[in-house]
């Protein structure tokens, strides 16, 4: 598959490398040219030599999206550091470019939830972190023997 990732931060760059290693075609778009270096962490050649593609440009610019290959993309991941940017470009990928699989990373659980209900595929790392913390904390009272109020539920 041809995957386009917008936002080449920690999430975007690591995802890009692992997807490339799995044999997919991967293109990244980021407004910061320096973010290219993040793609090469752990590689013994350049990102391009490894087969990857990198474009510098703003996520909302259709010209940049097209240069990065959105018209041929089978999958699109919106992983910039702005929730609203991710929500808007994911909808552009969906509605304007008809990309099959579109996923938006949204940090705010409320926005993630509402847009998920509207038919957008969303990943909310905040929600995942909260659930993991809840899970880790759930056993604490019982193992330390403190009189935890059981049955209250973690909500």
């Amino acid at each position, binding site marked *: 598959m041809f995957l386009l990732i917008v936002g080449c931060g920690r999430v975007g760059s690591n995802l890009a490398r692992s997807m490339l290693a799995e044999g997919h075609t991967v293109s990244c778009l980021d407004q910061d040219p320096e973010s290219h270096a993040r793609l090469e962490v752990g590689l013994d050649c350049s990102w391009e030599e490894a087969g990857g593609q990198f474009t510098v440009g703003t996520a909302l610019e*259709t010209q940049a999206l097209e240069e990065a290959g959105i018209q041929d993309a089978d999958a699109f991941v919106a992983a910039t550091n702005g929730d609203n940017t991710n929500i808007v470009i994911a909808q552009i990928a969906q509605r304007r470019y008809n990309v099959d699989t579109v996923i938006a990373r949204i940090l*705010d659980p409320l*926005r993630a939830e509402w847009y998920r209900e509207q038919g957008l595929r969303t990943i909310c790392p905040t929600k995942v972190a909260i659930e993991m913390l809840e899970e880790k904390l759930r056993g604490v009272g019982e193992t330390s023997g403190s009189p935890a109020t059981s049955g209250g539920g973690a909500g």
Partner: protein
Amino acid sequence: MYVIVAGAGKVGVNLTRELLEQGHEVTLIENRRQRYLGVEQLLEHNVLYGDASELWVLERAGIERADMVIAVTGDDEDNILICQVAKEKYGIDRIIARVNNPSNRAHFDLLGIKPVVSATELILRLLEHEVPHHNLVHLLDLEEEEIEIIEIRLGAKSPVVGRTVGELNTPDNTLVIAVIRDGRGMVPNASTVFEEGDDILAVLDPQREEELKALFTVS
């Protein structure tokens, strides 16, 4: 009317002040602490500190009972999101969004965010009127209503120069409403003769624009 304004820049603050003076109830939302504190001195309890693209902030501002939401932050993605949520989640019929970068205009259109206001586009339009670049200028576009008013400058080679309004075979749903000659406007009648350098104002269905343009200009 209860209005929520997002973004306390110059536009947001002045808009809020004007609306308050007109007797409306307004909540202005600003997420930058410094800016909020500055504006709060001026507008007091009409300002709310928070990110207007967070649903709970909009709810705290009372979006359920708002008659109108106006998003005028400096970020187009924020303005799109605020208006989209206001319209689709909270059912607010009347929204206005500011477009900061004209090249983002297409995104607003794609996601059904309208009407939009773009200072850059307004100035460009005025500029075009003052210094015509092409010989066709849009003076008014009522997109929903499908009607527009355009201005066409007649060049020396225009096929209508020397002919009368009555001789024109104008397409249906188009009407020549004024002729501006030497800086003075007049309402033409059938015997008005077109001259080189005239600016013609016409009201028409936008779909007829090409036809009308072809009538007045050299192709």
